């Protein structure tokens, strides 16, 4: 609006101005035109339109300019206006920017200043407002009619009224009658005069509570006229409460101070007593307050510390630390009191001590008691020490001397002594003494009971104590009187049942014994008495013990002796004898009989010493001490046979020989009875428990040894039985321990290994077996596993196969401790096995060839595919092959017959020439085919050998057959027969292929074909047959050969066929 109005104003001004300017101009122009006569309609119209244009133009310009100017001028005004509005609204931080440098600018400046001032003032006022509003105390402003004009928030808080509620209310409303009067008084008197005052009164809160307050009022003056009053109201309820508490505390304190036992005194720096309690006044006087403490407490005229005494008060004033202690004080009647005091400083706020509080307590009683206790303790300690001395040893000598020394020291005496009473003689002897000369001891050291002081004391049990014995009237007759001894005491030594003696202490000066000391000395007398009792007891026990010990030692040595002789004894008789002899030696029984329980019904005398019983038997049915002992498993003894013996059957021998007592002890192993041992005595003897026990021990040792030797005998028998069995079997059985040592071996082992038993047992198996160790399963068995292996022995051309089975032997801990080997000669079986295999091979091979001829050719014949001439040939071949087959079968049969011993050779004198002829004929064709040359050399003698002709023929045929087979064409075969004294040597030599060294060994084994086996057809039985024959002739065969050169087979045939030629099996046992 302003803008518009101002703008309008400006516009109008401008328009008017323009008019004022234009109108004259236009008028002039109009006049001019009119003058000139130009003015016509046309020109007028043009004029008017021009004017209009100009007018519009002028208006337009005016409008624009006024707008622009208006803005420029009006902007600061606007700004001022805005600022003013803001100020009105309360923002006092407004400052307007001065834009124009004119009056308006100045106005702006002034405006700014004005706003700043206003702000400051307002801030000040609001601060003041803040003070008023935040003060804790209530504040009201009242007018001259005492009506409330204003209150602060604290008022509301304390009294609960809001401002609106109280404005205009009279202040009297807040008080009760009494209060109102008080207020009115203040108001009228003080405030009206313009003075301010403070007074206590009670006000009511909104909810009717009374609040004690302190009102400070002041008038508000203006030009010396009171226009109102201002009052500050302080809530003093808290203060009142605290005041009450302090009051009550003070009361309590008073009560406490007055109720304590101690005297309570407060002392200042000048040693003046400021305060006391009842007790203090009672003790020290009613009027002590204000007096000096050293006067009252110590009756001194100066502070104690000045006298060199210790003053705690002074100490506290200087050191400022609390204190306690005890001091002595004589009361008004002159009695000594002990007082315990505690002094504490009272400090001011700077920490300086201003007063001392002293609490005093009478501790006289306590102190007295403490003294008493100390005394008692000393006494106890003395008694303890003595007791421990007495307890330290059970030897009287040790103990009493020490006790004496201790007593003399403790009681500050010059000497003393112990008198011990001999019950029988009733004489007191001074055993232990100190400070007395030997002479005196001799004189005064033996006192009869009742005589002199020690005697009287010992008799009556009443102690004697003297200050000075030399002048003591009670002592009349005494050696002591003139001995120089003065202070003296003599106390009885009381044992449990009676007085054992006395002890005395003396001094060469007078000595007063207090009652306490007397009491102690009496106690000492008692404890020494007890100690003496103990010592005596101990001695008794020791001697008893010694006796027992001796007895034990004797028993032990007997048992040891018995034990060692029993363990050495093996034979049953030895066992019995040893036992009985030792028993009789120790027990000194006059005779001992051992009855053996042969069967459960019969007891028989096995051994007797000191009496000859022969081999009498007892039936278990009859009632005798022996049978009883066994039946009831108890020791029986008869003290006197003649009396008790009537109840039992007692052997006549026993009765006749005059034995009076006997003891029967059953010989048992666990629950099993072996027999009875009877000890006989010529005197009546009863046995103590201990003796019986001892006898039982001996008998049980015996029983064990007896049983053991029984077992031993049995085991010997069993052992030899086992040995016989082992030695009779054909398999070798030996045991080897973990180290490889051969522990045992039976006969068969020696036979198999072909070594004497002595070279086997005890030796290491590796030594014995030599090269065969690898095959031996011993090691495996020693590891804990069953094992087996085969060993092949080759000796003198004889090959044997031994099968070994080894099993480990384990002990109860599952550890291997040995192994058992079973050796079995399985050569035979192996051979049979091989024979079987070979036969099968043979059958499958050797037989098949002839068979294939027979079968094949026959087939062809049957098929009719063969011409007649061919057919004859076929048939021939079939025949020949058939023959060959049968020959092989015969050979086999021959060998087996020979082996089984079915064939018995027929002995006839051999004509070698005849033999040679037969051979020549037999082999003619073959010699021709092979282009072999056959030569022979025979001795001149005719018949020099007796043998089976067929065998010889067979022998030579086989050899020659072999020579032919294993030679090339054009070979030489030579037969040589040599005649010697005891034997005949037949040699067949050829120039054939020779035999490999390896094959040599095995030649002659059935079906063994050697290297050439692959290439030639043969049965392999030839040489085997030869060997068998030679064996039957009791001869020997040797083969010499070199590969590529030839072979020589040499036969040794004994003339007396049953003469053993080969080395026989040695006597191996």
């Amino acid at each position, binding site marked *: 609006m302003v803008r518009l109005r101002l703008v309008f104003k400006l516009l109008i001004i401008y328009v008017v101005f323009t008019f004022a300017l234009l109108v004259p101009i236009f008028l002039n122009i109009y006049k001019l035109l009119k003058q000139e006569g130009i003015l016509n309609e046309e020109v007028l119209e043009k004029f008017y339109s021009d004017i209009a244009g100009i007018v519009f133009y002028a208006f337009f310009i005016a409008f624009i300019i006024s707008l622009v100017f208006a803005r420029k001028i009006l902007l600061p005004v606007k700004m001022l206006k805005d600022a003013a509005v803001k100020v009105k609204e309360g923002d006092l931080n407004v400052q307007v920017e001065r834009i124009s440098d004119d009056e308006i600018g100045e106005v702006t400046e002034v405006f700014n200043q004005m706003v700043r001032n206003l702000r400051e003032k307002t801030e000040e006022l609001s601060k003041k407002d803040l003070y008023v509003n935040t003060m804790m105390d209530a504040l009201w402003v009242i007018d001259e009619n005492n009506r409330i004009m204003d209150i602060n928030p604290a008022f509301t808080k304390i009294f609960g009224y809001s401002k609106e509620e109280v404005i205009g209310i009279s202040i009297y409303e807040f008080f009760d009658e009494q209060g109102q009067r008080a207020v009115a008084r203040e108001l009228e008197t003080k405030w009206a005069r313009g003075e301010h005052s403070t007074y206590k009164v009670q006000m009511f809160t909104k909810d009717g509570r009374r609040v004690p307050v302190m009102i400070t009022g002041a008038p508000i003056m203006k030009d010396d006229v009171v226009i109102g009053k201002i009052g500050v109201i302080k809530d003093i309820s808290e203060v009142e409460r605290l005041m009450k508490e302090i009051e009550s505390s003070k009361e309590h304190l008073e009560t406490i101070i007055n109720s304590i036992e101690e005297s309570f005194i407060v002392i200042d720096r000048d040693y003046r007593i400021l305060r006391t309690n009842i007790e203090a006044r009672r003790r020290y006087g009613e009027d002590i307050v204000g007096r000096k403490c050293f006067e009252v407490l110590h009756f001194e005229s100066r502070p104690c510390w000045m006298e060199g005494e210790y003053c705690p008060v002074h100490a506290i004033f200087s050191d400022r630390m609390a204190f306690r202690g005890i001091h002595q004080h004589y009361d008004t009647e002159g009695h000594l009191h002990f007082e315990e005091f505690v002094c504490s400083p009272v400090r001011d706020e700077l920490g300086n001590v201003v007063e001392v509080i002293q609490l005093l307590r009478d501790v006289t009683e306590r102190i007295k008691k403490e003294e008493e206790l100390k005394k008692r303790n000393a006494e106890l300690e003395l008694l303890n020490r003595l007791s421990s001395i007495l307890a330290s040893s059970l030897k009287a000598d040790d103990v009493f001397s020490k006790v004496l020394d201790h007593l003399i020291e403790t009681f500050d005496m010059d000497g003393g002594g112990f008198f011990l009473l001999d019950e029988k003689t009733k004489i007191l002897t001074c055993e232990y003494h100190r400070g007395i000369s030997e002479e005196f001891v001799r004189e005064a050291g033996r006192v009869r009971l009742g005589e002199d002081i020690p005697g009287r004391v010992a008799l009556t049990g009443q102690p004697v104590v003297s200050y000075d014995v030399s002048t003591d009237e009670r002592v009349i007759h005494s050696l002591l009187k003139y001995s120089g001894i003065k202070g003296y005491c003599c106390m009885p030594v009381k044992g449990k049942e009676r007085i054992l003696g006395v002890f005395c202490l003396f001094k060469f000066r007078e000595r007063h014994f207090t009652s306490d000391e007397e009491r102690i000395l009496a106690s000492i007398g008692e404890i020494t008495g007890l100690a003496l009792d103990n010592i005596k007891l101990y001695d008794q026990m020791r001697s008893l013990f010694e006796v027992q010990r001796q007895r034990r030692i004797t028993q032990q040595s007997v048992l040891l002796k018995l034990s060692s002789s029993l363990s050495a004894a093996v034979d049953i008789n030895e066992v019995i004898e040893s036992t009985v002899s030792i028993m009789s030696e120790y027990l000194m029984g006059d005779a001992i009989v051992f009855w053996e329980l042969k069967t459960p019904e019969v007891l028989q005398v096995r051994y007797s010493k000191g009496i000859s019983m022969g081999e009498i038997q007892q039936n278990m049915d009859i009632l005798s001490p022996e049978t009883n002992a066994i039946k009831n498993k108890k020791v029986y003894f008869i003290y006197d046979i003649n009396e008790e013996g009537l109840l039992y059957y007692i052997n006549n021998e026993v009765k006749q020989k005059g034995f009076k007592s006997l003891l029967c002890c059953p010989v048992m192993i666990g629950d099993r009875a072996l027999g009875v041992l009877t000890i006989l005595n010529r005197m009546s003897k009863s046995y103590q428990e201990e003796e019986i026990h001892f006898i039982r021990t001996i008998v049980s040792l015996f029983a064990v040894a007896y049983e053991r030797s029984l077992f031993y005998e049995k085991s010997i028998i069993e052992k030899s039985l086992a040995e016989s069995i082992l030695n009779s079997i054909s398999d070798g059985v030996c045991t080897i321990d973990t180290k490889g040592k051969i522990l045992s071996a039976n006969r068969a082992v020696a036979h198999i290994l072909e070594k004497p038993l002595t070279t086997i047992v005890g030796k290491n198996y590796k030594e014995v077996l030599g090269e065969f160790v690898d095959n031996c399963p011993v090691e495996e068995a020693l590891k804990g596993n069953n094992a087996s292996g085969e060993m092949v022995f080759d000796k003198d051309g004889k090959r044997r196969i031994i099968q070994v089975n080894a099993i480990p032997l384990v002990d109860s801990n599952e550890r291997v401790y040995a192994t058992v080997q079973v050796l079995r000669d399985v050569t035979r079986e192996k051979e049979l096995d091989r024979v079987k295999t070979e036969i099968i091979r043979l059958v499958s091979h050797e037989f098949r060839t002839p*068979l*294939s*001829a027979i079968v094949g*050719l026959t087939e*062809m014949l049957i098929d009719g595919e063969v011409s007649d001439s061919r057919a004859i040939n*076929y048939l021939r071949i079939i025949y020949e092959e058939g023959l060959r087959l049968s020959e092989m079968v015969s050979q086999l049969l021959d060998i087996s017959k020979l082996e089984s011993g079915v064939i018995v050779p027929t002995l006839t004198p051999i004509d070698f020439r005849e033999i040679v002829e037969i051979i020549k004929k037999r082999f003619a064709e073959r010699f021709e085919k092979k282009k072999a040359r056959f030569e022979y050399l025979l001795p001149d003698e005719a018949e020099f050998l007796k043998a089976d002709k067929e065998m010889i023929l067979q022998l030579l045929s086989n050899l020659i057959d072999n020579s032919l087979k294993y030679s090339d064409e054009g070979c030489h075969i030579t037969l040589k027969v040599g005649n010697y004294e005891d034997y005949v040597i037949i040699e067949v030599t050829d120039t054939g292929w020779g035999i490999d060294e390896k094959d040599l060994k095995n030649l002659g084994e059935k079906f063994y074909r050697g290297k050439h086996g*692959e290439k030639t057809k043969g049965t392999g039985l030839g040489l085997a047959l030869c060997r068998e024959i030679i064996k039957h002739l009791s001869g020997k065969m040797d083969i010499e050969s070199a590969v590529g050169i030839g072979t020589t087979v040499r036969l040794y045939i004994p003339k007396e066929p049953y003469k053993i030629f080969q080395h026989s099996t040695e006597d191996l046992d």
Partner: protein
Amino acid sequence: MSKKIMVIDDEPFILMMIEDKFKRAGLEVITLRESKDALDIIRREKPDLIILDWMMPEVSGIELCKLIKEDPDISSIPVFMLTAKGQEDDEKLGLRCGVDRYITKPFSPRMLLEVVLERLGD
């Protein structure tokens, strides 16, 4: 052109038997008693089939078979092994050495002819 069979066996009647049987069947048969020069003869004659005996002196049948099979000229010729050795291991060894067929003695000549013809027919 009739087929040529070679038979090598040191047993004469075997040779005879086979020769007769085979000749009747129209086959040409060459027989050898020794294995010594067998290899050369085989190379020369180049038979269509060879029958060998295992057990022979000097060079055994199995050795000969190996030699035959090693020689590329003649390795294609089928080799039948005729022998009394009848165990499994032997047969295996035989077949390993290149034997084409293994015939155990005793054998039937009829059967032998059959298998030979069969083989020749392939």
